[in-house]
């Protein structure tokens, strides 16, 4: 039985509540035993992640609600995602406030040396430090997670007081469309009113991945932008209509942005490595779209030479921006799980490993071109300032920001981010 399956069985033994969503569909929430609706304290914090949203898309005319929230809130236009610029590591950074060498989650896909297999980092035990969710729980408050992607549900799973399991999940994409996700978020607010709720809206990212017109028209992507804006409007309207707005902090951000490539702009390192007598059969690549994590599986004595060869061969390929010796590149902060060599592609390119057809999707992220993210604070609580800050901000700032809002101190393992209140 996998760890994820074990979590689900454990969840099944917990309180399960079926709630009718706005669209008439049944929404299933699981809660910790004995969990009650939130206490009388009115202060609320909501983190809304518009997965994969580019900062320039907010001002592009398709997202009037989000733009208005940004313009009237506290905006950090220098905000950045952190390596590897993927969903799982950056959501984990949001909730832990530390970088991957400490959080334990450096990428969506890693090579698990104990399993000798590439796998997704979707296990609760993949996170090595306390999360904000648990901290808020320990403070006597209640928490909720409404995460549209199955693997996000996996990694955060049973941490929150109240949880929504993404449903219905679109085949292939593995996510629940935003309409369902926001339906669940609003239902959770109405039903459980958690003090803190963590929401991932996945459709902008998923439509971006699949958008064959991404390099030009971005037709599907643009449509998703309008829809998520409308869903966020519903959420804001609910807060205002129910008197919650003036007690609320809303952190709106993305985990990474998005870049598109055409089928001729593909980097496949495996053929190069297979042709090298030192590397052949003694490496593994974890493909993360815009980043390849390469793991040396040969002898320790040859590791230094192997890393040099991996980097040299990677840099010989068109479309490769950089090939870093992970351990020697201090700013990456990925930890050993992040591989031995981290290869980033250029804008307009993608990795497809081990074969040229293994990554057919046009929209990708993980490389530095997808680093800029929207990041702003909104809500009607007096602690939410207004204006534009030129300070750096990043995904690791979410936990300290929400912590500061609730007066919760950093965990023993500390936060590396800063409160952006």
């Amino acid at each position, binding site marked *: 039985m996998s760890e994820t399956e074990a979590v689900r069985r454990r969840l099944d033994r917990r309180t399960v509540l079926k709630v009718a969503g706005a669209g008439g569909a049944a929404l299933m929430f699981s809660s910790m035993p004995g969990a009650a609706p939130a206490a009388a304290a009115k202060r609320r914090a909501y983190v809304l992640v518009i997965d994969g949203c580019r*900062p*320039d898309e907010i*001002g592009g005319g398709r997202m009037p609600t989000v733009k208005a929230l940004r313009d009237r809130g506290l905006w950090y*236009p220098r905000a950045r995602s952190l390596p590897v610029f993927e969903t799982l590591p950056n959501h984990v950074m949001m909730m832990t406030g530390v970088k991957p060498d400490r959080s334990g989650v450096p990428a969506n896909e890693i090579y698990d040396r104990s399993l000798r297999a590439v796998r997704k980092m979707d296990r609760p035990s993949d996170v090595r430090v306390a999360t904000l969710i648990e901290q808020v729980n320990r403070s006597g408050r209640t928490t909720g997670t409404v995460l549209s992607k199955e693997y996000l549900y996996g990694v955060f799973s049973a941490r929150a007081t109240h949880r929504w399991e993404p449903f219905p999940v679109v085949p292939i994409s593995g996510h629940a469309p935003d309409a369902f996700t926001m339906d669940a978020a609003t239902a959770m607010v109405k039903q459980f009113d958690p003090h803190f709720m963590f929401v991932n809206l996945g459709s902008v990212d998923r439509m971006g991945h699949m958008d064959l017109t991404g390099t030009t028209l971005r037709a599907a992507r643009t449509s998703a932008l309008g829809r998520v804006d409308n869903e966020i409007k519903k959420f804001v309207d609910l807060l205002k209509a129910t008197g919650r707005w003036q007690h609320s902090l809303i952190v709106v951000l993305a985990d990474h942005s998005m870049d598109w490539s055409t089928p001729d702009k593909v980097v496949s390192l495996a053929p190069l490595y297979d042709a090298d007598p030192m590397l052949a059969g003694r490496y593994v690549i974890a493909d993360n779209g815009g980043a390849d994590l390469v793991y040396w599986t040969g002898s320790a004595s040859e590791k230094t030479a192997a890393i040099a060869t991996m980097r040299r061969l990677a840099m010989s390929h068109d479309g490769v921006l950089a090939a870093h010796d992970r351990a020697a590149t201090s700013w990456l902060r990925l930890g050993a799980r992040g591989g031995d060599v981290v290869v980033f592609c250029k804008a307009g390119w993608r990795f497809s490993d081990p074969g040229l057809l293994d990554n057919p999707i046009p929209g990708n992220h993980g490389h*530095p071109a997808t680093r800029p993210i929207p990041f702003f604070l909104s809500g009607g609580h007096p602690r939410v300032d207004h204006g534009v800050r030129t300070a750096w901000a990043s995904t690791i700032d979410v936990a300290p920001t929400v912590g500061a809002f609730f007066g919760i101190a950093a965990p023993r393992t500390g936060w590396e981010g800063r409160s952006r209140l």
Partner: protein
Amino acid sequence: MTDSPALTDGTFPRRAVLAGGAAAGALALTGAAQSPTEAAANRYFKHGVASGDPLPHAVVLWTRLTPTAAATPGSGQGPGAHGTWQVATDQAFRHVVSQGSWQTGPRRDHTIKVDATGLAPARWYYYRFRYRGVSSRVGRTRTAPATDASPANVRFGVVSCANLQAGWFSAYRHLAKRDDLHAILHLGDYLYEYGPGEYGYGQGNVDVRRHVPAHEMISLADYRRRHAQYKRDADLQSLHARYPFIVTWDDHESANDAWSGGAENHQPAEGVWSARRARAHRAYDEWMPVRMNGTAAPGDGTRLFRRLRFGKLAELSMLDLRTYRSKQAAYPLVDGSVSDPDRSIAGDVQLAWLKTSLSQHRALWKVVGNPVMITPITLGGLPADLIDPVNDVTGLLPADGAPYNVDQWDGYTHDRRQIFRHLRDHGVENTVFVTGDIHSAWAAELPADKALYPLTQTVGVEFVTTSVTSNNLKDILGAPRRTASLAVEGILTAANRHVKYLNFDDHGFSILDLTARRAQMDYYVVGDRTSRTAGATWTASWATATGTQKVHPVSRPVSAG
């Protein structure tokens, strides 16, 4: 030896007024009475005072001493001299916060340049030089914000292309009247190398004022004397005394269309180019309030590209696009050399340095002080009889219809591709190129792939300021403004949809205002260049909103304060 018959007749330039129509170049000046203190200051410090390259705790201060009547610029005459300088928080110098001594002499043409340190960030200061008990004019300057500060705004006056023979520097005067700026960006062609009759006002190249020396500047003495003449201009003196300058050179500080191995306006009979350029650079280092090679000391190097930080709001990267560039392509479409990867406009070292400036993300706005235009321009459908006049102004239209000006980034597309790709690859946002050179005003977006615009990512924007006086399209055509130029502007913007604003007609200056929400360029035009008292009017404003890499029109300029 005198600087200029018009400006060294014993009167004080600030009091100078134009007696009559000046288009023919025959000027008469009259002056009001001076106080003894002013007279003494004018005797010793007749070239004014200046400051530049503001850092959070330091600023360059400049003046030129005339210790004896014989110690004229470029003469090599006159004694060594020493004196003091002071920086105070008040105009009366009751609160002096930094001071020191200086030494000068004929080896450096009696120029004085010090790096005043120990100053506080984002503060106004007053400074002066003293010699034999006589004080110079008091200058005002301002330090940059602390590197970790978040200033509400940073505002620059932006100028380029000031040809003294083509008219009066009213743009400088109007900038000096403002009290809302933090510094002046001078993007090059601060002075011109030509002799009288070679490049002046309008179709006839009439000299509104005549250059000194009365021939093309070639020798060190020539360059020094020409600098000295410009520094005697009352409007320029006022602006220098009021704000710190941040300068770069373009070609005319040495010779027209300069490149690393020569210049269009350099002939073999004029000697070895490298020697001539060294003389030009030496005079520039002596006469401009700038740190070359990172210091205020003249003669220790000529590296001009440098960065200046304005807190977390902006980092300014000033480029030198003349010293390291390959020769301009003569026949771009024929030899295809404009895209030759072995040719460079910036040089490998500077290009790598610029990439670092852009991707280190030290500030919100990555502003590039860019002497020549980087926006790609493709042309088509322009009537043949308009090509030559447009070329005279901008060089944009090679007679064979090639879609680029080989003197600007269009002639070095490999370098441009590297920069644009770097911006994309590293997710760099909010890059603003601020440019001069082509005597016209532009606002444009920078498409990653011009052919796909607008269905392509834009990697930054460019604002181009027009000339202070140098001839523009209507001057070359001899046409009234907003007549013949309109057709050219229409064709250019139609063929280049990423160009959103273009004004080929006017002279003037611009204001670049940076806030956390947007970068806005206000375009001002000045009236008749032959008039010493020409007015200035606002004509357009364009801005780029933070995070967009697009430009949009703005209905009004920022308040002048």
